[in-house]
């Protein structure tokens, strides 16, 4: 059986088309990301009311929660892109997956760092062995594994496929790891946003947070596209269109 995918899907497989298309998208995403991040940051850090228990120290939530959410989605994107690359033998998908790994790892570090800074005044310790912290740390290890495996291969094509297999194995394991550490120990407050329930905070607190989350996603898209574009140029450096791009730059 042959599954027919929409036309844009096949167009995306062409490095030149991808480069031109993301070139058009990039300024818009940058603008939206800048706007959302500025509005969310100012609103969250200056105008949102202070928490009645944690005072002003809770404001780091506006960095911590978006980065935690993003670190997980980034792994998912990396694994899905790797799967697309394996199934449809699409070079672009592998380039996107490869661009995801370092971004995801740095966002996971940011989530852990902001969590530590928040934990100090709230729990009285920089680090506690709590399920969610540990799960994020394991996620960081999974990213490090993918990056290490990718850079160990000399041959680019094998590196792509091997890291795609590894990230898929990791993706299957993430829920198992998550629930096993939750079983093991939990102290953290429950998730701030869930799809099914209304947030427990007042709207003047969670609306700026939502804006920050969206801003983080747009910012992620900007960084991802920039990295993937550079990767495209580097890998396609022998082709004529890349030479033209470089000459006109």
């Amino acid at each position: 059986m042959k599954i027919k995918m929409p036309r844009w899907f096949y167009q995306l497989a062409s490095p030149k088309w991808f480069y031109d298309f993301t070139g058009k998208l990039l300024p818009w995403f940058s603008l939206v990301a800048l706007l959302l991040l500025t509005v969310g940051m100012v609103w969250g850090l200056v105008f949102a009311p202070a928490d009645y228990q944690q005072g002003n120290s809770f404001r780091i939530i506006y960095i911590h929660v978006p980065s935690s959410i993003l670190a997980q989605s980034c792994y998912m994107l990396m694994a899905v892109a790797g799967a697309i690359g394996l199934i449809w033998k699409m070079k672009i998908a592998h380039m996107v997956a490869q661009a995801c790994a370092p971004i995801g790892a740095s966002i996971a570090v940011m989530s852990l760092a902001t969590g530590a800074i928040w934990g100090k005044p709230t729990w009285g310790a920089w680090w506690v062995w709590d399920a969610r912290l540990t799960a994020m740390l394991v996620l960081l290890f999974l990213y490090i594994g993918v990056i290490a495996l990718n850079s160990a291969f000399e041959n680019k094509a094998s590196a792509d496929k091997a890291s795609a297999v590894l990230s898929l194995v990791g993706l299957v394991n993430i829920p198992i790891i998550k629930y096993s550490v939750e079983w093991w120990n939990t102290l953290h407050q429950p998730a701030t946003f869930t799809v099914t329930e209304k947030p427990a905070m007042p709207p003047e607190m969670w609306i700026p947070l939502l804006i920050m989350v969206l801003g983080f996603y747009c910012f992620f898209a900007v960084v991802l596209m920039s990295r993937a574009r550079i990767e495209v140029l580097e890998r396609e450096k022998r082709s004529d269109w890349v030479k033209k791009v470089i000459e006109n730059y």
Partner: protein
Amino acid sequence: MSFFFAALKRDLLLVFRHRNDIINPLAFFLMVAVLFPLGVSPEPSFLSDVASGVIWVAALLACLLSVDGIFRTDYDDGSLEQMLVSSESLYALVLAKVFSHWLISGFCLALISPLVAMMFFLPEQGYFALVMSLLLGTPTLSLMGAIGAALTVALRKGGVLISLLVLPLYIPVLIFGAGTVQAGAMGLSIQGYLALLGAILVFSLMFAPFAIVAALKISVRS
């Protein structure tokens, strides 16, 4: 099925001709366990508290150490490539290799684990839980480790890399395995823990061989 047994017989025969391969993981397991009383404290009360975790971590590291060689010699002499191009089921081949690895690592570790448990003053009611959890948990370690071994078999510096890839995946087994021993030592029911370890084993038995085969194909072609 006959292919599975043929592959298993070959691997076990190879192991019995290099008997060090059986001794090394076991000696490593004992030595890691001995480091803890030397490095931390020989107090019996302390040792019986940490016994479950220390024995499980030592077993996990011993499995990890030996899993690197699971495809190595076959890759080096080219027989792995011949097996991959043959018309036989690769799923059976991979299962046979993992099973033979488990027999010489996890299975033997489970058999000698009561010895370490005695040195760590584990309460006697925990012995059964220890052996059962190792018997149910270590096959998963072999399966997951084989994914890492298959991904790194073509690389010269596989050793450290494989632990980076595989250790995060070992965490659930470690948690439930050590949890089983702790519950058993306190005289609580261990059925729930064993069921979870069994569930993880069945799950990885179903899916890990596909990942191993895909990884082997990538490594051989690179």
